[in-house]
């Protein structure tokens, strides 16, 4: 079962998340190189590392009359939110913080992005960044409620908000088997939190990178790292939530957790690479007219099964 990990795991958490983000964007870089007709070489795979080094070497630039404090908090605190969220994610048989309300904690960290994305967009004192901030809030209106209900489904199935109990409840059947809709909606929510791929309008190419429009150097690196770490944490959290945690034959639990996380990430990256951005008004329509009723119906099914 899930036990509390030794204290030094907490130190490793940011490093592990960073490594997963680098692995993921390297995968993306490889796909991009192939699409652009280049051979996939080491040079292509190290592109993200190079990019990070480049941002570290560049001077930061403060836009004219920006609200520097709020702007930098908004840009950099995504990393913190991601690490704090990852603290309640069981990995194999261990978890850094065995909270009794792990699911709520994860959701709270995701909800922090409402404030952070807005601060990053507003603080830059730039039209494109401001529009990015508006877009994040509008987009969050579309995904946040469905995401919360999607998170409720496993909690209801396990009759607990503690991640250890959620994993234990999936010993026989993974939750994804009888909560597939909740799983799909959860993944959509993760894309939304990190405004990634089809849900990237807040940092869209049509508004010159929106929230990221004015960021340079370390500020930009922090913002990009935060988004990536939120996506990776979201993928890792899907494993104990819907995919039976570290459970699986032959291999040790930690390896199963890692393999499942990478598989979820691969799905998210595949969606991001192959699909165009979804405009926010359309997302709002789909979110409220289709996704929300669907995930409520899913909850009803889970409730009936549990009561029965």
């Amino acid at each position, binding site marked *: 079962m899930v036990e509390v990990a030794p204290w030094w795991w907490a130190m490793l958490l940011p490093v592990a998340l960073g490594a997963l983000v680098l692995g993921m964007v390297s995968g993306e870089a490889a796909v991009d190189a192939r699409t652009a*007709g280049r*051979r996939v070489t080491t040079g292509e795979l190290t592109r993200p590392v190079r990019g990070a080094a*480049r941002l570290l070497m560049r001077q930061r630039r403060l*836009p004219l009359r920006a609200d520097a404090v709020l702007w930098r908090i908004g840009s950099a605190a995504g990393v913190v939110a991601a690490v704090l969220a990852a603290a309640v994610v069981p990995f194999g048989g261990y978890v850094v913080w065995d909270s009794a309300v792990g699911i709520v904690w994860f959701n709270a960290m995701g909800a922090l992005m409402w404030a952070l994305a807005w601060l990053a967009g507003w603080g830059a004192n730039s039209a494109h960044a401001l529009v990015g901030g508006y877009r994040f809030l509008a987009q969050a209106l579309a995904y946040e409620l469905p995401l919360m209900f999607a998170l409720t489904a496993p909690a209801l199935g396990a009759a607990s908000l503690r991640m250890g109990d959620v994993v234990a409840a999936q010993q026989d059947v993974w939750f994804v088997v009888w909560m597939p809709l909740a799983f799909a909606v959860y993944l959509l929510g993760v894309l939304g939190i990190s405004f990634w791929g089809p849900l990237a309008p807040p940092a869209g190419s049509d508004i010159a990178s929106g929230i990221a429009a004015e960021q340079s150097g370390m500020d930009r690196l922090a913002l990009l790292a935060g988004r990536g770490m939120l996506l990776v944490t979201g993928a890792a959290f899907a494993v104990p939530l819907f995919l039976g945690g570290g459970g699986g034959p032959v291999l040790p639990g930690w390896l199963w957790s890692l393999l499942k996380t990478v598989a979820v990430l691969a799905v998210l990256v595949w969606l991001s690479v*192959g699909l*165009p951005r979804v405009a926010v*008004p*359309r997302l709002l329509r789909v979110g409220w007219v289709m996704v929300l009723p669907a995930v409520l119906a899913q909850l009803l099914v889970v409730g009936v099964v549990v009561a029965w």
Partner: protein
Amino acid sequence: MDVMARLRRFAFARPSLLLLSAPTATVVRLAVERFVRGEGWSLASGAADADALVTAGPLPPDLAAIADTLEAQLAPPCERISVTEPDETSERLSELPERLARGGARVPDRPLPEEPPMAGMVEDRDGLMLDALHVPLGPALPFWPPGLRLHVQLRGDVIGHAHAETLGVDGVTGSFWDTAPAGVRALDACVRLFGVAGWHAAHTRCLVLRDRLLARAGGDHQGERGGRRADGGDVRAEVRRLARKARFLDPELRGLAPVPGVGDAADRLRTWLAVAAGGESEAAPGSVETPSPISPARRTLTSAQALDLLPELVTGMELGTARLAVASLDIDVTEAGIGAVAATVGDTHG
């Protein structure tokens, strides 16, 4: 060599470029874009993330002034590079990583641009009072027609008022596209539209296909450097595949910026892809010496007409939607019939 120098070399091996192209320098712009794709560099979305300002073509005074302003916004280490001939692209750009690793150029001491003035308070769609901003769009935006600047009044994220301006077109006598294959222009338009739509994979594929068609039209049968040689039909087949996938964009493009006789943005995208699919046969080996001009059936909307319609079309649109609309019109400011256009439209209580 010390560690720091090696690290700098590693970091700046693939710089990010802010490209400002003279509207007359299409052939240079295409060469720069092709170089960037081939080397795995990137084009910056704005001055904040750019390592270098790259200007394509000799810049007329109005664009040169804009280039100076952009250069002043770059954070060090940075460089400014001017490419005026397509043949010198590789030579000029290849030295950039080394120069950046050595610390870049001294930043010229120019005053930063003034903050855009507030337009005061206006009523938004719901009758709320809202700040309105004057924002110039272009000419150095990604996926934006070179030489076009659209001044918009932004209320939140909605355009309340717009007027268009053309830059760098004084004394221009003709367009690059007058003699280039129609398929190349169609794919160049797709590149911009897919780019604005955030469809990265389709955008990149169109870049590859555009460069391949262009190379073949120029008699350069080698096409892709180090890549497999594209033999007949493969560009056409891939464009057809893209055309089938393009319906992914229908929800954003259907009904967008409709023009009588030309259809909406989705129709125009379909037309481009059809031209590109057909353009393959026109540019097939054998006929490469005589590149076909743009077929008259391709578009019944000239750039001059599109530019006239533009301010009215984008008024009331969300900023991103307006960007899609602009990309869907494939405006070339060097096309015949465009003088110093200053079309203005919008409501007057601004």
